[in-house]
């Protein structure tokens, strides 16, 4: 029982079917690991002990009846951005510290229906705005590989729980890199599908034209199993796309012979750390050994993606977060003098510094007379960036590079410098602007810290991304490395 946490979802499901352990025991095992390490990592905001025990019991009934699906009885956690009926959804903010949603997000509902057992809700940067998880009302999450370092963000709690094997998987959301960047910094597998592939219903909105739900898991095969359940059209999300959902495990075992991989020179610019670059180059050579051919491509406008993103994302967040006014949603200040005083004081006390900064930027770029110069301009540049990718995909099947310019940085290193923090997402943001699916998979270590390999696919080409990631993982073991202190039972 003690090393259950080193198994993948596939391995755990086999054990459940063979009755080596029950879903209840599995839940207990991971729940204990979380309880024992949360003081150190702070990766979980809310534990759902009672609900998890009840769901696990139902899963055991299904398993006994021979009615189990691949995720039945598998414990996982949800990023605290997904609404969960009856369990607090804080979004990492004081604003929603007391918010209990009356319904489940579609992601939550689908995973529950498949029999997955939710253990709790993971820590995150407030309203998903951040790249270090230091912008959480509940305090920073620590990186399991080095607790003096950040796990990345905004899905930092989800990446940390998987890295420390406190659960085999967790959900996340990615607006500019919020799944892939923490996946890279924590050495786990992160998948951001095509925009609209997974329903946003019940996922607290940050930047609606960029937000996409996804997964953090130990490997690509597990990500495929999760995506099989999470993907699909949802009437309740007006941006959800009605596009057939394949079985994402179907082509995992395909050979990479004939695969054409694009390498953009822009990924290997001056800002890239040498240790990261050499691991990524080695991974690219490994993909060549597996049958892929490499073609140099250019994404000339990638360099303006961060600038473009901070217009689109800030504008949309200022609009989305206007509902956090102390009446419709959120914290309400004491003794308001009048509605104006109530809005301003509630919002000022309810939001943290980074959220306020983004709301201010968004308000400015949307203010009277500026729309054309900022938001409209950004939407035009966005098309130019997307067209770069479109041209590239005429010649290649997928694009590969580093997920992040450097490995995990230390706590407080960038917290006081917003621009430096924003540049952590320089390689990931363009995929959000273009709506493309992308992954980060572990591809080695630099000075003891994990390095992520970034794979970007064409629209709706998640199956191929997962195929490439799985083949790479069959021939490497970076994805199965676990930090020493979390390898055994946690004292």
């Amino acid at each position, binding site marked *: 029982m003690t090393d259950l946490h080193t198994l993948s979802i596939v391995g755990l499901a086999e054990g459940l079917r063979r009755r080596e352990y029950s879903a209840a025991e599995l839940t207990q095992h991971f729940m204990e690991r979380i309880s024992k390490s949360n003081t150190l990592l702070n990766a979980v905001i809310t534990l759902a002990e009672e609900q998890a025990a009840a769901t696990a019991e139902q899963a055991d009934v299904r398993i006994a009846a021979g009615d189990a699906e691949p995720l039945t009885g598998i414990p996982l956690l949800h990023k605290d951005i997904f609404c969960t009926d009856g369990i607090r959804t804080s979004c990492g903010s004081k604003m929603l510290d*007391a918010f*209990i949603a*009356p319904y489940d997000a579609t992601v939550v509902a689908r995973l529950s229906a498949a029999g997955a057992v939710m253990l709790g809700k993971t820590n995150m940067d407030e309203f998903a705005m951040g790249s270090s998880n230091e912008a959480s009302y509940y305090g920073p999450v620590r990186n399991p590989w080095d607790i003096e370092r950040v796990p990345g963000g905004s899905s930092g709690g989800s990446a940390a729980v998987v890295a420390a094997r406190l659960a085999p998987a967790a959900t996340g959301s990615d607006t500019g890199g919020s799944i892939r960047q923490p996946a890279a910094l924590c050495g786990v597998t992160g998948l951001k599908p*095509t*925009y*609209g592939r997974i329903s946003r219903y019940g996922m607290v909105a940050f930047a609606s*034209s960029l937000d996409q739900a996804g997964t953090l898991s130990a490997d690509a095969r597990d990500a495929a199993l999760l995506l099989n359940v999470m993907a699909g059209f949802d*009437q309740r999300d*007006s*941006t959800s*796309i009605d596009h057939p959902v394949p079985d994402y495990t179907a082509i995992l075992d395909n050979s990479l012979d004939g695969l054409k991989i694009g390498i953009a020179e822009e990924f290997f610019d001056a800002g890239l750390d040498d240790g990261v670059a050499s691991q990524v180059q080695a991974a690219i050579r490994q993909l060549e050994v597996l049958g892929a051919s490499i073609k140099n491509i250019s994404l000339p*406008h990638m*360099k*303006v993606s*961060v*600038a*473009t993103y*901070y*217009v689109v994302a800030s504008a949309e967040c*200022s609009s989305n977060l*206007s509902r956090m*006014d102390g*009446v419709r949603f959120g914290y*309400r200040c004491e003794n308001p003098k*009048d*509605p*104006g005083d*109530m*809005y*301003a004081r509630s*919002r*000022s006390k309810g*939001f943290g510094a980074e959220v*306020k*900064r983004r*709301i*201010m*930027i*968004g*308000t*400015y*770029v949307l*203010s009277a007379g500026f729309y054309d110069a*900022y938001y*409209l*301009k950004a*939407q*035009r*540049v*966005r*098309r*130019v960036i*997307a067209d770069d990718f479109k041209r590239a995909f005429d010649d290649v099947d997928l694009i590969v590079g580093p997920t992040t310019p450097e490995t995990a940085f230390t706590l407080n290193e960038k917290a006081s410098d*917003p*621009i430096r923090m*924003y540049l952590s997402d320089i390689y990931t943001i363009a995929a959000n602007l*273009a*709506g*493309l699916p992308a992954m980060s998979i572990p591809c080695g270590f630099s000075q003891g810290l994990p390095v992520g390999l970034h794979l970007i696919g064409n*629209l709706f080409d998640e199956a191929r991304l997962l195929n490439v990631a799985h083949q790479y993982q069959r021939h490497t073991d970076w994805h199965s490395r676990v930090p020493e202190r979390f390898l055994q039972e946690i004292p």
Partner: protein
Amino acid sequence: MVLSGAQVRDIAWLARLQIDEADIGQYAAELSRVLELIRQMNEVDTDDVIAMAHPTDAVQRLRADKVTEVDQREKLQALAPLAESGLYLVPRVIE
């Protein structure tokens, strides 16, 4: 692009945020730096480019005008900070 203190106060008012007078200078400096970063997008010539509103150019879906939600009044009111006799209580707006 350098924002003045007065501009920061204006933006804060529009955003319904209250900012301490002591923090105005820091906000002005930080927001100015972000706007400086944003200026990079002006390097791109977009004269003949159609703005991209959706990554896959999807159009707004319509649905039949039918009631689909079930009545959950009690469940929803139980979550409100203040409710009484089936009504949501909000702070007084008119004296």
